[in-house]
């Protein structure tokens, strides 16, 4: 093929260009045009991403839609992008979530609208860039750049304690990524002057440096996932962030960490990964069990969902470090499904928060009497969060549990407790918020969801059910890539 339309670049840069255009609309006098432009940009971004799926060759485990341009020669850094079966679904997820977030903030955000909408579009393009980068420095640039919009989103439109949460979020993530930068520079030296991620996959590295590289990557990715014990920034960030910020944080940004493990840690440091697998599994199981218990006692709905995110992402890291195809595939499915479910859960809390300006479970009760349609949607997502068969939440967890039982019965046993704990904290919260007598005069005043809210929740509901009943289209594109990855991981690189 001689010339191909640079679809991937379009997917990365189109939201960014629209984001800048939205920022250029200036102050709140032009709020409506800012909203409309950003929605157009987000929808075009999603449409642009569709060919990535439809033209994807799922039989191939290599990179597709590759674009390669010299960026700066001084350090042999290239604009090198491409996708495989791991990054493609994540890019689609990101492009899918962005319009929903824009719509979710449509009426709620009244202050500095253009900056809010622009930040989300910029974020969307930057995150696509992270998933598509095949050059370590390009990856790093996108990775760090994604901090800036989120920092501002939390800090400007967040709750009362937003400054603390925003700075904690920024510094925590920066700590991990700076060490990752050192690892990249080290790999640049060892590989004789290359920043290509695919070159790193072929690199032979002795065990001690491999472990150090693994640890540097681990700090960067574990903070993002987040794994226990570096998860403490997440509840703070979620609680303070505006609804849209929480959705993007949970649905998209956490996936960056999971993606990083698959793209960097496992194939670049396979021996260290095997060497430290027990530790990783232990940390994952602690996240699954212990964080679930913490979620149980939360009085704040957003905090509860934040902790449940940590627990669910524990499944993802657990799946990765079992080193078999079904585990990794299950982890990938779990990431996508968590994107839908956690996004939907935060949107549901947002719906309530917009009306009552409280996130405390105790302030609610009997909401079903006033908001029956909302209660039905919330029920579906709560069930999905608890891992009910037929919803997307079940598929990933089930696959990971299956994979872990092959490795060790007790891994599977501990992981499976999530089905109980997850149901407990989610459904108990649901019961206290939705059922019972109408708790207060404020609840008595509630109106059911608007058409705008209905549309968002309905789209997510379809996604959750579709992935739960027929996950094949998602898993099918991953097979070849994950097999390819496992070949790398099982070969020693000492």
């Amino acid at each position, binding site marked *: 093929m001689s010339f191909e339309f640079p679809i991937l670049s379009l997917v990365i840069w189109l939201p960014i260009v629209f984001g800048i255009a939205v920022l250029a609309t200036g102050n709140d006098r032009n709020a409506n045009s800012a909203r409309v432009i950003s929605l157009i940009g987000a929808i075009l971004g999603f449409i642009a991403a569709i060919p990535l799926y439809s033209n994807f060759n799922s039989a191939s485990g290599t990179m597709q839609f590759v674009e390669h341009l010299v960026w700066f020669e001084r350090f042999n850094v290239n604009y090198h992008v491409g996708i495989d079966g791991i990054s493609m679904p994540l890019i689609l997820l990101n492009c899918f979530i962005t319009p929903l977030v824009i719509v979710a903030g449509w009426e709620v955000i009244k202050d500095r609208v253009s900056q809010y909408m622009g930040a989300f579009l910029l974020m969307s393009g930057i995150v696509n860039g992270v998933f598509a980068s095949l050059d370590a420095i390009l990856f790093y*640039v996108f990775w760090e750049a994604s901090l800036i919009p989120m920092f501002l989103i939390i800090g400007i439109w967040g709750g009362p304690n937003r400054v603390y949460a*925003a700075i904690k979020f920024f510094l925590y993530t920066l700590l991990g990524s700076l060490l990752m930068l050192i690892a990249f520079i080290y790999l*640049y030296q060892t590989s004789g002057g290359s920043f290509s991620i695919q070159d790193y996959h072929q690199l032979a590295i002795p065990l001690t440096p491999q472990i150090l590289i693994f640890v540097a990557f681990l700090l960067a990715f574990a903070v993002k996932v987040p794994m226990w014990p570096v998860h403490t920034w997440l509840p703070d960030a979620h609680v303070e962030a505006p609804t849209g910020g929480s959705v993007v944080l949970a649905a998209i940004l956490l996936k960056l960490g999971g993606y990083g493990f698959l793209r960097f840690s496992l194939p670049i440091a396979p021996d260290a990964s095997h060497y430290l697998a027990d530790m990783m599994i232990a940390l994952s199981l602690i996240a699954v069990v212990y964080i679930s218990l913490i979620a149980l006692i939360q009085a704040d709905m957003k905090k509860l969902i934040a902790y449940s995110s940590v627990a669910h992402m524990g499944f993802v890291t657990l799946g990765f470090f079992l080193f078999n195809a079904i585990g990794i595939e299950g982890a990938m499915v779990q990431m996508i499904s968590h994107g839908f479910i956690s996004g939907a859960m935060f949107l549901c809390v947002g719906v309530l928060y917009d009306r009552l300006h409280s996130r405390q479970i105790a302030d609610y009760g009997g909401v079903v009497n006033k908001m029956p349609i909302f209660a039905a949607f919330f029920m579906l997502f709560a069930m999905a969060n608890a891992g009910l068969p037929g919803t997307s939440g079940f598929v990933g967890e089930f696959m990971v549990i299956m994979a872990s039982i092959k490795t060790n019965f007790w891994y599977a046993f501990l992981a499976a407790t999530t089905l109980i704990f997850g149901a407990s904290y989610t459904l108990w919260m649901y019961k206290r918020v939705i059922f019972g007598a109408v708790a207060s005069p404020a609840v008595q005043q509630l109106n059911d969801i608007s058409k705008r809210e209905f549309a968002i929740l309905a789209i997510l509901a379809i996604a959750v059910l579709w992935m739960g009943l027929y996950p094949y289209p998602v898993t099918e594109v991953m097979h070849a890539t994950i097999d390819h990855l496992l070949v790398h991981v099982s070969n020693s690189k000492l």
Partner: protein
Amino acid sequence: MNFIPPDFAPASSEIFMLIMVCIVMLADLSAGEGRRYVAYLLTQITLLGCALLTFLSFTTDVIETFSGMFVDDAMADILKLMVYATVSAVLIYSHAYISDRGMLKGEFFSLILFATLGMMVMISSSHFLTLYIGLELLSLSMYALVALQRDSVVATEAAMKFFVLGALASGFLLYGMSMVYGATGTLHVSHLAQIIQSEASSKEVLVVGLVFIVSGIAFKLSAAPFHMWAPDVYQGAPTAITLFIGSAPKLAAFGFVMRLLVEGMGEMVADWQGMLVILAVLSMAVGNIAAIAQSNIKRMLAYSTISHMGFLLLGFISADSNGYSSALFYVIAYVLMTLGTFAVIMTLCRYGFEAENIDDFKGLSKRNPWYAFITLLLMLSLTGIPPMIGFYAKFAVLQAVVNAGYVWLAVAAVLFSLIGAFYYLRIIKLMYFDEPETQEPIVSNSDVKILLSANGFAVLALGIFPQALMGLSLYAIQNSM
């Protein structure tokens, strides 16, 4: 004995500058009060003329003249062009500030030009004495500039401190040079390198001399533990002067270190490497940690400078053209960021009001979204977040450090810059997350607006496309070694 006149051509820009300084002084005297713009315009024309002369005489050869005391090479030309641009920007940024505070006098311009001449001589010298003369010309002009606001107690105090400590540093430097002379019998940079290489000199005396020279350099660079003067001077000096002190002289200091340590005493790299490691780590630690505690923005930026100088020194540690060019890139990036940051501070100042505290940034995004956005870029760049230029500066230096085998040093450097991230983020927090305390409009002339926008744009654009500047830095170093 017949007298052969030296080749004046390589020093044409210096000679032009010297003549023009006298003309500026005289012209200002005859133009008198109320027509100060004459001196201002003449100063800008001088810088432009120097730039032209330097540009026209640009050469990839290394040309020595005045019996080898003066050198013109690619690095000198590039550094000088940067110095002219920086000084010119300083003048544009500070014009309104200076005239509001009654400092717009002929002396201001002539002192700035003399200081610039000092920098040019420093950059181009290939003899320890010329180096010293250039340094003193720069330093004495700076002392006088700090004290320009005669009736201000803080400024006078700052000038005194600057003078006393600066004189001490010069003493150190001279003492070190005299020891080097005692050991080798020469002060020519190139002869010195040969003699040290041939090991015909006393190593012990040389090392002692080197210690003094490095201390002197650390003083001038404000690297810890010789940094004490910087916070007081930055705070005490009028902001426009702080801008000047904090920007262009760093470029000259880079040239100074290159001539003294790399070209002159490059054979003793093993000796000065260890000293620089200590200076760099201490500077990054002291600068970043102390900056957190500051509530005065100028003081905070002084500590930030100290930490950046630590990073700059890291570039020299790898002792190859890769490392030196990283350091050059770093210093250019640093100057660009400093210019913008102080320019924003000066736009916050009004007649009779000094923006001194970091709280003065409160709510800037509501008062002036555009300046707030530029400051956002600058702060992120100072933190080292891509895609701003500050990231590539740090990246290039770290790469050189890892290349030299000091992985631990790179880890230490990034951990300190993580600490540093906090106080830059605090400025962003004040601008974007807090409400403004005053609704005073922010007025600035259109030339400042345009230049500041260009400055912010450069921080971003050179970050997205760093190749040109990186290539230039490498070219400068490779063609002069």
